[in-house]
């Protein structure tokens, strides 16, 4: 019996391999053709309907600024994935709590005039509040929801994370109310700069600067400090790290705090950019940032940043470039479709991500 089974298995393997490949190749051809046709038709639209060169430049700047926020959130996903091999589905909510907490201060400062009198000091406080709130939520999340499940089968922590995400989102709705709150924008961040003919709003510049600083600081922390070293050791192998005298719990909590800090910064930046805070503001950026992390190669710092920027660009440039030409009305409505299509394609064709080490078997 065993022999026949083995032979049947072998035969089937030979039979079915091409099917999978045919599906993939067809998919690849469809995608490439779609992209080619879409962009060709958009770029060759008649003069009046075509986007001006300046418009494309604006899209790119917007995309980079968006990408900066995605990169900051994506770093949080990547860090946690690197160390626990789990997708922290609730990271978007960590981000949301940072934004929301800082909103209350921003609102009070805007009413008292402090926000425009001492903008630098006020912004610093806002960022600190966001950071503290986000990292507190991240630590609680780890302590309450994830720690008891550290050795459970892989789907268990994922389902827990989905539950935690739902819980946190609706807790925010219950605590702070379901309405959209207008986030005040300090005068100092209104208007824009013009460098070498490229216009960029001040907020975009702030986002890019913050994302760069955040990434540098994180890299230094992870590669230059002793705690960072212990985190890397735990990411490599929890049990052996513990045997080497590393406090695994502490390393994991540190990871969540770092993710929380970056998410807090991203939350404040996002809220200032789009001038609102709401209980469900974390969902879409969260998914987008996760896509970014996968796109760049989950588990790697530079991958998360690269993925974030690429996805930001894709979201800003993609819809008008690909869809305008084929007569899709209001292409930006389909922004999220671009995100998810990219995610699906990356996972199918290069599961390790752009900078990933081809961890195909772990996927």
């Amino acid at each position, binding site marked *: *019996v*065993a022999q026949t*089974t*083995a032979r*049947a*298995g072998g035969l*089937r393997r030979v039979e*079915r391999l091409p*099917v*999978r490949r045919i*599906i*993939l190749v067809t998919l690849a051809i469809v995608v490439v053709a779609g992209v080619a046709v879409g962009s060709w038709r958009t770029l060759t639209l008649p003069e009046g309907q075509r986007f001006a060169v300046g418009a494309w430049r604006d899209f790119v700047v917007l995309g980079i600024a968006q990408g900066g926020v995605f990169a900051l959130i994506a770093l949080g996903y990547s860090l946690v994935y690197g160390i626990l091999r789990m*997708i922290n589905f609730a990271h978007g909510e960590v981000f949301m709590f940072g934004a929301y907490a800082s909103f*209350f201060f921003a609102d009070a400062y805007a009413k008292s005039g402090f926000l425009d009198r001492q903008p630098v000091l006020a912004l610093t406080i806002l960022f600190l509040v966001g950071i503290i709130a986000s990292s507190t939520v991240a630590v609680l999340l780890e302590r309450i*929801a994830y720690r*008891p*499940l550290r*050795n*459970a*089968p*892989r*789907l*268990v*922590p*994922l*389902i*827990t994370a*989905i*539950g*935690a*995400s*739902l*819980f946190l*989102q*609706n*807790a925010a709705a*219950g*605590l*702070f109310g379901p309405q959209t709150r207008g986030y005040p924008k300090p005068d100092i961040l209104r208007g824009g700069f013009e460098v070498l003919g490229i216009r960029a709003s001040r907020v975009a510049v702030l986002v890019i600067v913050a994302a760069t600083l955040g990434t540098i600081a994180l890299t230094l922390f992870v590669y230059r400090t002793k705690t960072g070293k212990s985190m890397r050791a735990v990411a490599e192998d929890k049990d052996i790290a513990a045997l080497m005298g590393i406090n695994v719990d502490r390393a994991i909590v540190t990871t969540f705090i770092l993710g929380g800090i970056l998410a807090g910064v991203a939350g404040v930046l996002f809220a200032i950019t789009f001038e609102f805070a709401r209980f469900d503001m974390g969902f879409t950026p969260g*998914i987008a940032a*996760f896509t970014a992390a*996968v796109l760049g190669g989950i588990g790697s710092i530079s991958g998360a940043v690269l993925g974030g920027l690429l996805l930001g660009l894709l979201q800003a440039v993609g819809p008008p470039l690909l*869809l305008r030409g084929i007569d*899709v*009305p*209001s292409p930006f*409505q*389909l922004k*999220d*479709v671009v*995100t*998810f*299509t990219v*995610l*699906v394609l990356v*996972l*199918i064709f290069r*599961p390790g991500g752009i900078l990933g080490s081809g961890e*195909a078997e772990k*996927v």
Partner: protein
Amino acid sequence: MDEVRIRGAIKAGAIGGAALIFIGLVGMLTNFEGLNLVGDELNLGLVLILAPVLVAAVSASRPRVVAGELRSPATVQSLVAGAASGAIAGAAVAAAAGIVEILGIERVRPVFVSVSEELLDIVLFGRAWATGSLILIAILSVTGAVAATGSTTPARIRRPLVVALSSVLAMALLHRIVPTILLELGLDPTWLYSRVTLGLTWVGAIVVFVVAAATSIAWSERRRFARGTRQTTGVPDTRKLTRTLLLLAIFVVLLALPQLVGSVISEVLGAAAIFVLLGLGLNIVVGYAGLLDLGYVAFFAVGAYFTALLTGADIIAVLGTAEPAFSLNLSFYAAIPIVVMIAAFVGLLIGAPVLRLRGDYLAIVTLGFGEIARVLVTSEWLKPAVGGAQGLRDVTSAPLFGFTFRRPQNFYYLVLAFCLLAVYVSSRLANSRVGRAWNAMREDEQVADAMGISTVRYKLLAFAIGGAVGSLGGALFVVRLGTVQPGSFEILVSITALAAIILGGIGSVPGVVVGALVLVGLPGLLAPFEEFRLLIYGAVLVAIMILRPQGIVPNVRRSRELKEEELAQDEWARERLGVEPQAAAVAVAGGKLGVEEGKEG
């Protein structure tokens, strides 16, 4: 009283206090206060104040491992521990209330929207802060002490008490169903339920308490009796008979239910039954095949839209209605097979590209598909075909021999028929060759593949069948409403279905039914719960995964799998079989399949 226990009591009290403050700030206390349970003295808000302390006190006084052995605390110790944790929780809440009093409600409200005079009145029992806090701390300490005795009372006394109290709670919560049924049966419900407070009367509560306690005692006595005589008498025979009778009784109740409970509750039942259907479908994908699909709403949408389009629904336009780009005028029953086939095909389409992905990646990609479905149906782009953000109207009411199913009571029968079909299909699948292949694949894909199970084929099959069942849910959903509203196709549909199967027990058909009825039906029956539905779903998902991953009505094989960690299994393999885990898994799986193969061939 040792140091460990003191620390435990303080910790439990602090956590209980934090939970209580959270419950208050999130608005549950004020919302649930209006729901009277017994008389007008005992309402759900009050129960909610006591609940965190109950849990905290039980955990503070539970047996602990001291110096390597499990020790139950002495009665006095546990009383003190429980009371202390209650007092600490009370003090925490009192402190929070004090902060609110000092800052003033109007200054806290812009941040925490639920803080109000009413909330303070509830936690401080309508007194000023000082007296109110004292009362609160006293009540919570007493509750803590009482709860703590739970771990020292013998199970014989504890179990009937717990059963009786939860029965009273359950009966009180079902205050919209039970009286209607009694009235419909020609009985007088006024002695049981008060018409003024809507909850149980005190007399009714006492009767329920006594009856439940007596039943519980009788049950455990009978069990002890049965255990003693099982070897001598033919228990299996009677068991089979009981089972048939039970199924028959359930069937009769199911048929009679909508006539007894009236149209409002039939409506809720219909909505819950749709989720039973969705849960059963998702259970095939997640529970049987082990593929975590978060984009299940895509199939729901496919079922809804194609049913509407095939049966001749119209687009809602600025001026009245418009004909969709594609539409047929089939009858509902002719359309259903086509819809099911389309959904199965969509299942293949979604399944094919993600065949190589596992676990969490699969979850995120399917989530992506679900979101794509949602964005597409609301987009301007597909508006001529599916109606964009406005959706479709005039969906068929599925007339059958002049009998339409739009009315809640009638719709119930339609959805019941489909649910029974889905239950039948799922339970037959579970024990079929396909079901065993899914099991093997879920437990170890590589081993299953090595044993000659075509994982590609079975994964696609799971997506197709699961999708087909899900599309039935969508089809019935639009028949119920008569319109297709694109706002209904959110990720939350997927998550609700997932929560239902997790709560009930992954892979267990009765579990899924129970889970869906509890999660969707209960909030529908209890208006104050509706607002916190999603919050509760989230908490349920987390709590179940941490405390009871196998669910309320577990599937035996699945629970074994979830309980034991992979490491423990490897350890077992090394010890018993004397081989390395990988080889052992192959050996075990090979043995199992070999037997089955032999049986059938």
